[in-house]
């Protein structure tokens, strides 16, 4: 009897140990991209499905193309009509306001009329073939309603967003910030060790993970280089290779400069930002693509002075040389 109990307990313990030591990866589709979650431990499957459902709800809330979402209501409102928004939208807006100010408008969520003009929005990009760049006149028209500080009034007490007079055509888009925000929020759901990857916006919890930075151009290697993402950190990458078209031999990519209305031409083709806030990192990677290396590094230094976010970055230039900002332990492949 005693031998039997000991044997059974031993087998159960071994099983529990092997189950908790294992990791499982599940893949879902949300925010127009793949969501991969690697979780260590037995309860992984349940948590990943909960996180997926949560991310779907965030997408519904934050996407400008989903009817009834906060952004859809804002974008379709007339100047002067206040739109009551969810706590999530207001939280994102407070982050967006700071990055817009600190980057001198290089990251601007009001760029959406331009994104649509260039057919880079998620609902249009894959459907339109034979893309051509818009005319300068059309760009100028779209630019006239771009400018987050001029076009919108944000009331954090009332929780409302209002288009200012003369900006009826203004529109907001969280495309450069929502995925980083969603990953950051998702990390709170995991108790143990987890890696969440939403289309390259990656968060680590409970342990270090080795992360590769994608090649911005065709290469024999599967990634450009790698570094260690510490527990609690997130990475976002913006590049000219993610969504682009070629017209008459010239590449037109989706990171648009809010000052020119055209694809950024700062000398950088890929910017990866690591920090402890997913939304900030996501917005910064876009801002630095627009600003270029020198202004980008100054922006990182300023943010690290003012906030406890430990921002680090890898900047890749058109000639495929690279620069690492901060102590990342980056190794070129």
């Amino acid at each position: 009897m005693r031998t039997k109990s000991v044997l059974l307990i031993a087998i159960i313990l071994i099983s529990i140990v092997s189950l908790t030591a294992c990791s499982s990866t599940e893949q879902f589709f949300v925010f127009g991209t793949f969501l991969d979650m690697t979780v260590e431990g037995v309860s992984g499957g349940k948590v990943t499905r909960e996180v997926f459902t949560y991310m779907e709800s965030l997408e519904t809330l934050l996407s400008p193309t989903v009817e009834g979402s906060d952004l859809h209501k804002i974008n379709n409102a007339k100047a002067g009509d206040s739109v009551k928004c969810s706590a999530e939208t207001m939280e994102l807006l407070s982050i967006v306001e700071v990055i817009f100010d600190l980057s001198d408008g290089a990251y601007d969520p009001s760029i959406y009329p331009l994104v649509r003009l260039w057919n880079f929005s998620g609902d249009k990009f894959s459907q339109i073939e034979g893309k051509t760049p818009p005319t300068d006149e059309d760009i100028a028209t779209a630019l006239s309603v771009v400018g987050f500080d001029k076009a919108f009034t944000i009331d954090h007490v009332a929780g409302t967003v209002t288009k200012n007079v003369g900006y009826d055509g203004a529109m907001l888009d969280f495309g450069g910030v929502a995925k980083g925000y969603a990953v950051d929020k998702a990390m709170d759901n995991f108790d143990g060790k987890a890696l969440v990857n939403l289309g390259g916006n990656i968060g680590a919890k409970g342990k270090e993970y080795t992360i590769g930075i994608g090649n911005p151009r065709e290469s024999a290697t599967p990634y450009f280089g790698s570094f260690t993402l510490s527990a609690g950190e997130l990475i976002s990458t913006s590049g000219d290779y993610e969504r682009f078209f070629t017209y008459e031999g010239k590449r037109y990519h989706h990171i648009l400069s809010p000052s020119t209305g055209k694809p950024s031409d700062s000398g950088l083709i890929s910017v990866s930002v690591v920090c402890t806030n997913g939304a900030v990192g996501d917005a910064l990677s876009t801002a630095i693509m627009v600003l270029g290396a020198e202004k980008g590094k100054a922006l990182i230094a300023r943010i690290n002075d003012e906030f406890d976010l430990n921002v680090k970055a890898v900047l890749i230039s058109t000639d495929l040389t690279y620069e690492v900002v901060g102590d990342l332990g980056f190794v070129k492949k």
Partner: protein
Amino acid sequence: MKNKLLKDIFKKGDILLVLVLVVAVILTAVFATRTADSFVEIYVDGVLAFQLDLLKDTTLDLNTTSYKIDLIVTVKSGKAYVTHSDCPDKLCVLSSGVSSVGGLIVCLPNKVVVKVTPKEVDAIS
């Protein structure tokens, strides 16, 4: 005698429980191995030419402007194969697919080596 001893220690239900647990451990081990992703390296004349994701079905034709080798590597359902080669003996084409780390297919006449190596990164941004 041996059977009697086993019967003394375990009842039918216990044996069932043990079997269920053993199956659970084996399944866990199988899934854990699968998530420890690997990729396929293709060397031409000793130099690393390509790296392919082992979990992504793909076909790689080496008859390109850079290599001009009449050989095709195919990755399907987590295994890498040489599916075509103009070499005389066709040993590489006849080789079984490789999927576990260390798995190797060699085409000596074309100086091509297909090798499964552990994935070095957990994710790519």
